[in-house]
């Protein structure tokens, strides 16, 4: 255990190894790929637990830099380090991925591309662990990009679906916009601080000018916003739901999208000295939380509701970061990972059982899917922030710190809480209660798919009581329980739930009534305020156009032609050279002699050739 804590790189190496193994031998047996996937998840989880235990003992786990090239020290070195923050993140990633891997064994059992799926999931875990345990921004960036690639490939898992392919491309392009910011921030930081590992950075950060720090903080935040799907770069996440549901649970709810929050928490010393950047974070967080929650209310696709809800909850985390309490943000990240992955997995079972993602065609699923319903209920209560689930505690802390930092922002977040409770109640009622709208008989979907949500219900409910120790393990500032805020939040949430249950008790008819009354506004919200096209026009299209132009002029005209030219020349020469190898031994021997004569002539005239080559010098 201690060894694991001191060698956090194992959390990267083992999943990478398992990914390779899956790719190589995953076809050998039906069980091989899932078992290897579970192995990689377990290795991440064990690493995380080991790190946390070591930190709890009061010892700092060992960190090291691999000098993998015999070059000068420090340049492009990659190493690992671990502390409470890293340990918590590893545990979250490991635990959720373990559940998702088990769940996938059922969900993807009949899928053609299972081997690729498990290989990519394992590779994703390796990349995520690299982001987490790397001791500097260089390793983080490599893992960050690798995560993006895995996410892209997994969203497009069902390549036959054109929507999936388009969604994958969109996710890739939009997050790339954020990554450009991240890369620019890293380069700027390196050029001024001369180092990229957190330890050296912390030492020199006071000597940098505030302007530089603010610029770096804002640029890093752009990367975080892209990855964590915050306004205005959030548009890729709802479309990413085209991927398999377990992927949505792991990557697009619990782990990768939370990497933005983790990035800011890990580089917090920079933000401490850049107040402007934290204001920006607060503003973006609150706006995203409220806006996305509203959109979630009117979605008809169960996965899109959850996607917008994820965006909204990530907004809460950003607001906490903006208020200056990264520990609170991380705590909400942890609880959110538990209850949101639970909701996704349960939703996956619902989809699997009812054969549709459309809320209006579900209903009455409570009977026949008892386990899934119970698990969902716990997750829904946590998302709504009802006492005593974990979501109540983590959201309460955010509401408290934001309110005391900035009252209007706090008020908006209280409003968001009510809206959240409303849409949670709406979805729950539409899916599990009311008349059955589908001819398919609801049924449980096998042990592999019904157990993981139930297990996830344990942290979703119970984590709240671990708030103090977990935040203190991360060595962050703890915020106590505040009764007035808790009372108001609970009241608001209960009101939201009540409205939701009341309006939708008779099925999807309320939506129709709303739609008729609100007309265009309804459609506007449902389409995510049509931000999609705005952002696409202003950000994605120009960069895509730029990329196309670059492709056309540089890649196709220059590189392609060069490559094709080299290739065809090589083929041509290869074809010609084949005539040398005509099967005639005597010609072969002659070739040898010709070679000897050439070498001899070259040697005896070398002094003259040398003089000629060097220009008579």
């Amino acid at each position: 255990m201690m060894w694991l804590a001191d060698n956090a790189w194992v959390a990267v190496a083992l999943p990478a190894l398992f990914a390779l193994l899956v790719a190589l031998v995953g076809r050998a047996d039906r069980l091989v790929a899932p078992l290897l996937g579970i192995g990689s998840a377990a290795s991440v989880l064990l690493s995380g637990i080991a790190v946390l235990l070591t930190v709890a003992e009061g010892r700092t786990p060992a960190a090291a830099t691999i000098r993998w090239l015999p070059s000068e020290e420090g340049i492009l070195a990659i190493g690992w380090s671990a502390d409470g923050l890293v340990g918590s993140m590893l545990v979250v990633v490991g635990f959720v991925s373990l559940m998702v891997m088990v769940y996938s064994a059922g969900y993807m059992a009949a899928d053609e591309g299972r081997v690729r799926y498990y290989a990519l999931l394992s590779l994703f875990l390796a990349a995520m662990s690299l982001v987490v345990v790397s001791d500097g921004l260089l390793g983080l960036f490599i893992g960050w990009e690798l995560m993006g690639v895995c996410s892209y490939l997994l969203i497009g898992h069902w390549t036959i679906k054109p929507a999936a392919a388009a969604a994958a491309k969109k996710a890739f392009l939009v997050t790339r916009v954020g990554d450009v910011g991240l890369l620019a921030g890293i380069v700027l930081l390196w050029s001024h601080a001369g180092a990229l590992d957190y330890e050296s950075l912390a030492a020199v950060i006071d000597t940098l000018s505030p302007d530089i720090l603010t610029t770096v903080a804002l640029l890093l935040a752009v990367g975080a916003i892209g990855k964590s799907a915050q306004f205005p770069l959030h548009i890729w996440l709802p479309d990413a739901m085209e991927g398999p549901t377990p992927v949505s649970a792991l990557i697009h709810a619990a782990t990768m999208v939370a990497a933005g929050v983790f990035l800011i928490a890990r580089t917090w010393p920079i933000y401490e000295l850049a107040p402007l950047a934290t204001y920006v974070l607060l503003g973006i967080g609150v706006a995203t939380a409220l806006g996305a929650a509203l959109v979630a209310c009117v979605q008809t696709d169960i996965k899109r509701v959850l996607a917008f809800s994820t965006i909204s909850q990530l907004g809460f985390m950003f607001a906490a970061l903006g208020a200056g309490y990264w520990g609170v943000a991380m705590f909400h990240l942890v609880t959110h990972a538990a209850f949101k992955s639970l909701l996704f997995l349960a939703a996956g079972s619902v989809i699997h059982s009812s054969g549709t993602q459309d809320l209006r065609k579900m209903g009455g699923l409570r009977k026949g899917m008892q386990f899934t319903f119970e698990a969902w209920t716990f997750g829904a209560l946590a998302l709504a922030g009802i006492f005593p689930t974990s979501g109540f505690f983590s959201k309460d802390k955010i509401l408290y710190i934001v309110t005391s930092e900035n009252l209007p922002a706090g008020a908006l977040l209280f409003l968001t809480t009510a809206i959240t409770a409303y849409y949670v109640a709406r979805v729950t009622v539409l899916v599990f209660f009311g008349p059955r709208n589908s001819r398919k008989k609801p049924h449980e979907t096998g042990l592999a798919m019904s157990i993981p949500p139930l297990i996830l219900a344990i942290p979703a409910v119970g984590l709240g009581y671990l708030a103090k120790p977990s935040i203190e393990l991360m060595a962050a500032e703890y915020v106590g329980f505040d009764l007035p805020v808790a009372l108001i939040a609970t009241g608001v949430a209960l009101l939201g739930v009540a409205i939701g249950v009341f309006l939708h008790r008779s099925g999807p008819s309320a939506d129709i009534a709303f739609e008729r009354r609100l007309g265009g506004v309804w459609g506007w919200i449902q389409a995510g305020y049509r931000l999609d096209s705005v952002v696409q026009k202003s950000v994605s299209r120009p960069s895509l156009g730029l990329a196309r132009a670059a492709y056309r002029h540089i890649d196709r005209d220059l590189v392609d032609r060069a490559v094709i030219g080299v290739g065809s020349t090589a083929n041509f020469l290869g074809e010609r050279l084949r005539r040398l190898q005509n099967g005639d031994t005597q010609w072969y021997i002659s070739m040898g002699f010709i070679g000897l004569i050439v070498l001899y002539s070259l040697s005896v005239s070398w002094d003259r050739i040398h003089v000629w080559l060097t220009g008579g010098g």
Partner: protein
Amino acid sequence: MNFVLVASILFGLGLYGVLSRRDVIAVLASVELMLGAATVMLVGLAGLPSLSSQGGADPGTIEATGLLLLVMAAAAAAVGLALLVAIARSTGRTRTDELTDVRDRP
């Protein structure tokens, strides 16, 4: 120094035979001629009186080596002939321009 001339002529003849004769047996014979010529050169040079004065190797060693080389050349020739017999039995081909199955095909 006559042996140098003899050896050179023999080596040249062998080389010419290897490159020009199309009958594998003739090619094999020419190969042996080259080896033999080289051995003659070695043994002949070993007998030069100017060398022994330099305190070089014992001419006797070289002569023994020459014999060994002859034996090995004979052994190798046996392998070559055995290969040729095996090929001739199965395909009936004994000319180098017929033995072109293994090659790059354009």
